[in-house]
């Protein structure tokens, strides 16, 4: 195991440090709050000769992803960074990156989508892109962002996968807050990530290829199925890479983190930085003898449905927390997919879906305790509560 380097830095600095260590070939990017610091820092690394990455200062995020597709298809390891409307403008190209099977790495700093325009965190950007064919991995804090980013390329570029990957962190909460972190030395990181060695690419003399065909109905469906199989394959690759990462760093990763779930009767299931808040509240409630735990999703695509159902089967009730509004009148994406997974795996526990933290709204330990109290009242006293509700509104309806 490598000796860690102790540092203090923000999430944006942490991911930029990882980029410096990986030294990707090409980075097209366009500034947008709160991810702007990342292309700024990479540009500074380039200006100071710390990396030899080619930076493309594109005129929009659509062009950022378009250029990334061209570059990755040409045979160069390519990454970009964005947030919110930037990801929305990339939408069409996200689908093409995935369907062309290009292992581009995108570091996403989650920010709400307009409107109203707002620069703060929620997951509406990445959750809106959940069905674009990208692997999505989320972080709770700067350490996880750094660790996830280093694992991104070996996952995406694995020959069983060949899919683009989105490494997500919460805007401002993680991207700008300075925390302690343990970095890894450059050499083992470079060795861990290795060289990009695609089988087929545009700049391969004597072996030209054509990318992006028109495909008639007789062939197009098979292409989509092959892409779905690749996403399935990503499951085992994510775990293999996590195991390798553990050997190097001593830090363990899986599809999700189970916190005090061994004997938990009530669970809060969520994604991202709010997990820290939930864990804090769980510790306090455990002091009072309340058997509660947290399930923090790390890998949302591919979705670890069976594993989540297995982890929840001993619980009486789970609060499923979405930091995004789906406007479907039912619940957010996590709510939909977790409840469907529980049903399919015959884990018939109580589920309550909450929408929280939209556009940077604070989510506190008081909210967590209130939710656990409501779950307990539902199960033990039969006190009904709406199965889909907001928490933390100025006026509760």
């Amino acid at each position: 195991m490598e000796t860690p380097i102790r540092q203090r830095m923000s999430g944006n600095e942490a991911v930029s440090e990882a980029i410096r260590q990986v030294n990707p070939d090409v980075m097209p990017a366009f500034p947008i709050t709160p991810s702007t610091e990342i292309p700024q820092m990479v540009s500074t690394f380039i200006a100071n000769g710390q990396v030899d990455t080619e930076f493309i200062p594109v005129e929009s995020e659509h062009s950022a992803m378009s250029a990334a597709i061209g570059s990755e298809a040409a045979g160069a390891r390519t990454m970009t960074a964005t947030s919110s409307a930037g990801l929305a403008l990339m939408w069409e190209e996200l689908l093409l990156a995935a369907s062309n099977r290009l292992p581009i790495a995108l570091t996403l700093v989650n920010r709400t989508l307009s409107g109203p325009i707002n620069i703060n965190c929620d997951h509406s950007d990445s959750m809106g892109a959940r069905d674009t064919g990208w692997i999505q991995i989320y972080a709770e804090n700067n350490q996880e962002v750094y660790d996830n980013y280093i694992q991104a390329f070996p996952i995406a570029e694995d020959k069983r996968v060949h899919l683009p990957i989105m490494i997500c962190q919460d805007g401002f909460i993680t991207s700008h807050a300075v925390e302690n972190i343990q970095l890894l030395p450059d050499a083992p990181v470079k060795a861990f990530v290795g060289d990009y060695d695609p089988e087929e690419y545009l700049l391969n003399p004597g072996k030209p290829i054509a990318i992006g065909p028109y495909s008639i109905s007789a062939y197009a469906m098979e292409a989509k199925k092959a892409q779905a199989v690749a996403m399935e394959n990503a499951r085992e690759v994510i775990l293999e890479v996590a195991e390798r990462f553990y050997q190097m760093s001593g830090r363990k990763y899986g599809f999700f983190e189970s916190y005090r779930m061994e004997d938990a009767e009530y669970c809060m299931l969520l994604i991202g930085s709010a997990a820290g808040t939930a864990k804090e509240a769980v510790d306090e409630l455990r002091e009072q003898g309340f058997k509660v735990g947290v399930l923090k999703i790390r890998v949302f695509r591919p979705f670890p449905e069976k594993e989540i159902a297995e982890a929840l089967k001993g619980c009486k009730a789970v609060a499923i927390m979405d930091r995004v509004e789906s406007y479907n009148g039912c619940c957010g994406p996590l709510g939909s997919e977790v409840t469907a997974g529980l049903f399919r795996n015959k884990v018939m526990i109580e589920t309550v879906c909450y929408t929280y933290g939209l556009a940077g709204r604070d989510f506190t330990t008081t909210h967590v305790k209130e939710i656990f109290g409501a779950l307990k009242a539902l199960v033990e006293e039969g006190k009904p509560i709406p199965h889909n509700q907001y928490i933390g509104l100025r006026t509760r309806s």
Partner: protein
Amino acid sequence: MSTSGNYRLKNMLKQPERLTPGHRMCAGCGATIAIRAVLRGLQPTDHAVIGNATGCLEVSSYMYPYTSWEDSYIHNAFENAGATLGGVETAYKALKKKGKLGPDENYKFITFGGDGGTYDIGLQSLSGAMERGHDMVYVCYDNGAYMNTGIQRSSATPMFADTTTTPVGTESDGKIQYRKDLAAIIAEHYVPYVAQSTLTRDFMDLHRKSEKAIYTEGAAFLNLCTPCPRGWRYEVSDVMEICRLAVETCYWPLFEVDHGKWILNYEPAKKLPIEDFLRPQGRFAHLFKPGNEHLIALFQEEVDKRWEDLLYRCNRE
């Protein structure tokens, strides 16, 4: 094969085709002829990566599992051929720098887009790629409408053309607006090379400009008038004649802007009236109905004005 010195069309045509037969482009399509000519500008020893915006050319030349392209080829989407090929060109620089491509492996980068993908939806991506100065050539095959989706107007469609979104009717004379001058817009980016060309009898103008665009370092733009028999409604065998009339009426002047200097490449000995260009095309048939003479006069007025502007640009010191 060089276009300089003793130019012979016969010699140029001896080069191996880089867009091979078997594609599904229409008979009498100007774009296919122009694109094959552009590719003759490549030295046979050089590799190329060809980019392509969504459009007729893309859906007809690379329909899975067949491709007509001898070189590496990438189609991404409709509006981003500039950015996509810019990414490929940057990857080339990165791989060269890191020694992953040998010093003798030369690649050139050419991307093709129709006028819809270039004048309209792809203008931002094109402008960005030109401004950043990628060492590439963007070739617009301008057939003056969204032909792939069924002849809808674009900002390259000439005034009064009958298209499916500017249909001629009791209350309509066809498209209301004049067309955008894209070559001038790109020239105003001060890129090293911009040229406008079309199919001429000996193809010297297009062959020479293609070679120059490909081998001028930095961003280059070619705007090519490429008639479409479906949209323009002419006899397929008349494609060369239509192009000749476009030039002789000064509807489509042949010029280049070489490192900021505007150069007129051809001045008709006797400028033909615009009717000669309009008459063989079904999309302008309504202009020749009695009572519509004033529309032709308006068209002529605009052609004259633009020709004068071009002469001014080319003659100033």
